[in-house]
């Protein structure tokens, strides 16, 4: 039975099949919501799944002048990192499979590796759109990473721990969104930047550089990157809901809170025109500053008001 437990945890729940399915379902919810906001129908429920299945069954074209090991390995790395990150997240409100003091930092950086491998995949190919996309992905990574991390550390500081499960438990009694609204907004927008959702989709702006770093990807590689993104979406939403939205105690609060966040996320996606990459970078400078201000306030009040 000792062996069975980690196998289930890795392949079925919470990582593995469950989080993949959940990710695809949330991708669909996101697309459907954006469609609804734009007064159109949107895809049917199985569309993301069908896309992935179709891509998996297709021939993977490896372009010339690339390192084939990197080309094949990077999507795997991205998905592996995203799935590992899921092990640390309190999915469905259950205790995370892996947990230790400081796992918040590990999780955030695992999520960053997903983006890094995306950028590497782009710079690995000789395609011009991919190269520009890779440069933009990295630029965007550097600009949102700091504020996103700072925004997640805000609740960590008031909870007095850098362990996700502890913060989650602490947040169960405190709606940190009320005391740290700036942090919440920046965390949410940071997640959009991380996932390259509109309006922060300059790295894959289709009207300029087709699909950015992933232009040369087809078939399996593309499918794996998409899966990694959808897992990233679930993990990101879980973290924000756990930290800012009164914690996640059970499956009902999990779905309720993440879906409400998704509703807001989809709304934000449909309200703005795309930022140019240098505009994105500028935006995040202000975000970091605002967060530092909030930190000073928290430090001064010493978390007593909480």
């Amino acid at each position, binding site marked *: 039975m000792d062996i069975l437990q980690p196998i289930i945890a890795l392949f079925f729940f919470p990582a593995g099949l469950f989080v993949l399915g959940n990710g695809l379902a949330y991708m669909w919810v996101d697309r459907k919501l954006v469609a*609804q906001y734009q007064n*159109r129908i949107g895809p049917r429920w199985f569309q993301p799944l069908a896309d992935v299945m179709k891509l998996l069954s297709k021939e993977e074209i490896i372009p010339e002048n690339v390192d084939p090991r990197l080309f094949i390995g990077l999507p795997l790395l991205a998905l592996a990192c995203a799935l590992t990150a899921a092990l640390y997240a309190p999915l469905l409100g259950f205790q995370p499979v892996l947990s230790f003091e400081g796992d918040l930092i590990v999780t955030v950086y695992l999520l960053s590796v997903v983006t890094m491998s995306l950028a590497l995949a782009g710079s690995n190919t000789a395609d011009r759109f991919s190269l520009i996309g890779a440069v933009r992905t990295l630029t965007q990574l550097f600009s949102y990473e700091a504020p996103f991390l700072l925004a997640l550390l805000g609740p960590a500081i008031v909870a007095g721990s850098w362990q996700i499960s502890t913060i989650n438990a602490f947040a169960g009694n405190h709606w940190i969104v009320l005391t740290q609204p700036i942090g919440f907004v920046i965390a949410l927008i940071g997640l959009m930047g991380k996932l390259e959702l509109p309006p922060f989709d300059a790295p894959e702006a289709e009207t300029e550089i087709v699909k950015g770093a992933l232009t040369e990807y087809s078939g399996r590689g593309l499918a794996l990157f998409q899966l990694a993104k959808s897992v990233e979406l679930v993990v990101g939403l879980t973290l924000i809901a756990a930290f800012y939205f009164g914690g996640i105690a059970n499956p009902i609060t999990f779905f309720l809170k993440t879906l409400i966040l998704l509703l807001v996320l989809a*709304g934000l996606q*449909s*309200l703005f025109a795309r930022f140019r990459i240098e505009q994105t970078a500028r935006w995040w400078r202000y975000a970091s500053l605002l967060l530092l201000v909030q930190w000073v306030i928290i430090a001064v009040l010493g978390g007593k008001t909480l």
Partner: protein
Amino acid sequence: MKLPIAGMLRDVVESLFKRPMTEKYPFEKHPAPERLRGELMWNPEKCTGCCLCSKDCPSNAIELITIDKKAKRFVMEYHADRCTYCAQCVQNCRFDCLNMSNTQWELAALSRKPFTVYYGKDEDVQIILDKQAGAKTPQPKPVTT
């Protein structure tokens, strides 16, 4: 209400509670407007065989085949796949023999066969078909009028 940012906020929020505008076309259809220019229809009763319709057809979609001019026996071979649906033939016809249907406009098909349509009396169409038999002519779809 003018916001400096998110100018579409009202539309977006309202849409959340509205039905999507998208028409689910093959499942829900609304009737075509009266003037829609669909497939060409020919009424042989009044036709004098002047061929004005085929002369000005920009895409050579109309062939008027005379069997017996005196008896006013004509067959019209109409190529719906060449037709540009401009209705110049309708405009040209002085005897109101032609009109464009506003009901028959879903013309997609998997082969080219259904796009060649013969109009005329059954026996006349048969004569034409017999003439063309042997050659690789497509199976026609006779239309009785």
